[in-house]
């Protein structure tokens, strides 16, 4: 028995699934097969009925997905936070910024290289929302200091390393990312940087082929005490990557 999980990449790249899925399978006997793609592609694939359950991190898009009848119900699953990484020399002096809006404004003013995923992923949508709160218009500067990579988080971080650029990333990806080069965390902690993951079973009324029972079992297990404990127990280099917060 198996189900397909359409998932964002950060959860896969960080190794979370390799840690928790064996526990899930041991408990329920169900094999969860993860297809890790961008949030946008994950939701599209699921809307095409090519998945049984979705794990992503872009709340507005998730709610629209449910409102369209593609998913049954959205549940908060876990969170971590976004951080701004950049070259250790910190030419835009981001580290001392009081809040994320100031941090981004300084990057724009300094015209320091900034690598944006620009791929409509959850991370990118959040980044755009954060720029909204500043005076800067980074997209107008695209191709100069603002680099729209159109790539996944890992690829974008590789690019940021390659060009000594700033980037917004989720903490899970960052901790498990192995090609950090000269980059380090320069800004973190602003409440606006909260990164909430949700889980949504695909709606069997929209997709008759969906393995609804398995999907529900997966969702239930993730939201259960066992699942939440498993998520909390996952660490990389001693650090906890995801903080369960199912209601």
């Amino acid at each position, binding site marked *: 028995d198996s189900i*397909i999980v359409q998932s964002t*990449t950060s959860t*896969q*790249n960080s190794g979370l*699934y*390799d840690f928790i899925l064996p526990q899930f399978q041991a408990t329920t006997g169900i094999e969860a*097969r*993860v*297809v*890790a793609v961008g949030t946008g592609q994950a939701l599209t*694939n699921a809307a*095409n*009925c*090519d998945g049984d359950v979705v794990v992503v991190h872009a709340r507005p898009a998730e709610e629209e997905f449910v409102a369209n009848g593609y998913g049954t119900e959205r549940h908060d699953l876990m969170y971590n936070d976004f951080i701004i990484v950049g070259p250790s020399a910190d030419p835009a002096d981001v580290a001392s910024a009081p809040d994320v809006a100031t941090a981004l404004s300084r990057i724009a003013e300094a015209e320091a290289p900034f690598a944006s995923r620009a791929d409509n992923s959850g991370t990118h949508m959040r980044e755009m929302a954060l720029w909204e709160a500043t005076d800067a218009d980074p997209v107008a500067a695209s191709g100069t200091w603002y680099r729209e990579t159109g790539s*996944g*988080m*890992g*690829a974008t*971080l*590789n690019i940021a390393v390659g060009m000594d650029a700033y980037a917004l990333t989720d903490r899970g990806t960052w901790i*498990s*990312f*192995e*090609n*950090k080069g000269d980059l380090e965390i320069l800004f973190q902690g602003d409440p606006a940087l909260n990164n909430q993951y949700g889980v949504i079973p695909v709606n069997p009324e929209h*997709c008759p*082929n969906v393995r609804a029972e398995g999907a529900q079992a997966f969702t239930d297990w993730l939201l259960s005490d066992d699942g939440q404990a498993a998520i909390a127990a996952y660490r990389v280099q001693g650090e906890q990557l995801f903080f369960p917060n199912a209601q």
Partner: protein
Amino acid sequence: MDPFSSAFVAALELIASLDPNLLEVIGLSLRVSLTALALACLIGLPLGALLAVVRFPGRGAVVVLVSALMGLPPVVVGLVVYVTFSASGPLGPLQLLYTPTVMVVAQAILVTPIVAALARQVIADLNVEYDETLRSMGTSGRMTIATLVWDARYSLLTAALAGLGRALAEVGAVMIVGGNINHVTRMMTTAIALETSRGDLSMAMALGIILIALTIAINGAVMAVRNGMERRAYG
């Protein structure tokens, strides 16, 4: 240690450990790509021969098309196959998405034009010599194609090896239709892409080194067999 050396060390360690995961991934790569190549040859060789031999209206256009399709972008092929085999697509009921079978389909689509276009050229070149002789004998179309393919077999191997190279190296299409699911549809190239996006460049390059070594081994074996056969035939 510079990144290249560390990649080499990692590659050697991986091989030495005979990591079952690695073997599984290598096995799937070989299985999918060789099956796709077999399909591509089954269609591409006769098709190439046909285009080389038979004159029909619109043949020039087909030749251009096949030649152009050597440049099919893997991602586009992946998408088209995805849309076709997606649950909401026409072949959705087959439930083949995210299985090795559909990866074979995607790679066969990518590789068939390569085999066909290269075979067409090889066979057309041979047919410059054979054409009048075979026609003067009243050779049937089917027999003409069989004769040309057989007599050009050593040259056609290069076309097949080009196709195999494309299949083994390709990632865009299998990533989309296979989903790179661990233990199910993870191949060498999708594993490399995954390690790259995780920033583990050494591991990615190590896997790359192993993949290239594998490709060299296959090519070497094919060439050795071919040379042996050629020598025996023309002793």
